[in-house]
């Protein structure tokens, strides 16, 4: 508080962006010190929707806790579940069938596209263009429809169980996904015309929120945020899980280190995800979708850490087990939390308008940060 008072004496202005602000996409509070329009300091205040998911999971069984994690990063809920299930499977040493692996990866990539679509629209809206938001929701809607067909829910699917997936794919799945791929390829190029090539968009994002490679590593940034700074950190490539090592896809890396390269990484990632889906959609192996597991899961005593690549970066699931049916301690290393910590560094010297662009390209999902 003292610091803030002294800042005011110097003719600076302290302004709250959030908790109820259109561009924070949730209840995040940023206390911004301004000099005119120039940002001197950004201080995030978190916890408005902190639910202590880690504590909650300590009282839930290994089957139950997975569903809670859908509520963390709700836009890539399926990938969160995936990470948790992988950790339990690692502890229990469950070998899951090929079919389940492929289904999981397919759903992961669909979720990633859905998440990036939403980010794309919201990002455009942050910069003041409304139309892309509605356009991106059309494709996202197609994906959620596919999800709904198979998983029974649109956002928090809870489709993954330890040992595989909950139910088998819907008979229409392949047809609908193929239709989606066609639609996506057609529309995504249009969107690039509307947004990516637009001079105002480019000038709003280029050389804004510069995060050098060293800083990105030091701040623990992962996912598209770090890849926009030239760090290769794609978990799917570095520590492949499921069948990612058998797939052909590129890790998208841009070396511009600014908002625009982060933007490009996400846009190009959508195309990569589409190519992954194309590789898999005709090659879903027959067989079980779920491995036989015991009714009550008990992880052996020990510590287990798995990581997956969510739409926002690296999600780490760290389970400390005492051999009971519930985890002794569980920690989620969420990507958004680390990415947010770099915001102050990036924002210094920028304008308020830049701050909005930066938050847009960091793709913050507040429940993911607060947990």
């Amino acid at each position, binding site marked *: 508080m003292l610091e803030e008072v002294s800042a005011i004496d110097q003719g600076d202005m302290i302004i709250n962006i959030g908790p109820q602000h259109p561009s924070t996409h949730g209840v995040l509070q940023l206390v911004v010190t301004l000099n005119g329009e120039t940002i001197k300091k950004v201080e995030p205040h978190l916890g408005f929707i902190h639910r202590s998911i880690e504590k909650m999971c300590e009282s839930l069984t290994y089957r139950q806790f997975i569903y809670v994690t859908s509520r963390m990063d709700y836009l890539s809920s399926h990938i969160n579940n995936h990470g948790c299930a992988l950790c339990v499977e690692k502890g229990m040493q469950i070998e899951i069938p090929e079919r389940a692996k492929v289904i999981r990866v397919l759903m992961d990539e669909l979720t990633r596209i859905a998440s990036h679509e939403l980010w794309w629209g919201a990002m455009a809206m942050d910069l003041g263009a409304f139309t892309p938001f509605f356009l991106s929701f059309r494709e996202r809607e197609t994906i959620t429809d596919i999800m709904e067909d198979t998983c029974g829910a649109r956002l928090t699917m809870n489709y993954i169980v330890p040992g595989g997936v909950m139910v088998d794919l819907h008979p229409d799945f392949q047809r609908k996904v193929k239709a989606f791929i066609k639609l996506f390829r057609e529309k995504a190029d249009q969107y690039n015309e509307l947004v990516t090539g637009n001079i105002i968009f480019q000038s709003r994002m280029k050389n804004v929120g510069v995060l050098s490679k060293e800083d990105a590593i030091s701040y623990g940034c992962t996912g598209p945020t770090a890849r926009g700074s030239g760090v290769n950190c794609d978990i799917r490539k570095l520590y492949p899980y499921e069948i990612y090592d058998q797939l052909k896809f590129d890790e998208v890396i841009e070396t511009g280190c600014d908002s625009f390269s982060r933007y490009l990484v996400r846009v190009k990632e959508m195309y990569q995800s589409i190519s992954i889906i194309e590789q898999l959609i005709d090659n879903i192996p027959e067989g079980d979708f779920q491995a036989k597991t015991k009714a009550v899961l008990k992880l052996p005593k020990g510590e287990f*850490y798995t990581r997956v690549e969510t739409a926002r970066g690296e999600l780490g699931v760290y389970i400390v087990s005492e051999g009971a049916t519930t985890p002794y301690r569980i920690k989620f*290393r969420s990507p958004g939390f*680390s990415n947010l*910590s770099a915001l102050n560094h990036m924002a210094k010297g920028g304008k308020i308008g830049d701050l909005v662009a930066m938050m847009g390209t960091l793709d913050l999902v507040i429940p993911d940060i607060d947990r």
Partner: protein
Amino acid sequence: MTNEELKIKLTEVLPSATFEEGGEWVNLSVAPAEWKPFAHQLRATEGLDFDFLFCVTCVDWKTHLSMVYHLTSTKHRHSIVVKSKLDRTKPEIETVCDIWRTAEFHEREQAELFGVDFLNHPDLRKLILTDDFEGFPLRKDFEDPINMIKL
């Protein structure tokens, strides 16, 4: 570098470190007092180059607290887990946020949820909880006055 080579190298850097068996990564324990210089060496030593701190956790073992740092090197792609036992009544450990800047937020989070005091941390205010919150919610003996599940 394989885990065995890593162990040898780490013993050179810190002879007093004790290794734990099991797990996919090298697990080692250090005393809280030794942690800070050790962290400096982990970051700076040629061949180790642990530049990426990806997870900072605290575990309440009822008798003591234990800090867990997950480190990896973006250059050599090897990872280690460093643990440090803390006294439960007065948990104190040096901050590492000048070495890995991501630690600033992670340490603030652990500080308020477990009550760990990170010495020399630039800004150890509450990040998630309200300023007047009492207690450390993730400790095992914490009782939430309002429990939604026990209706």
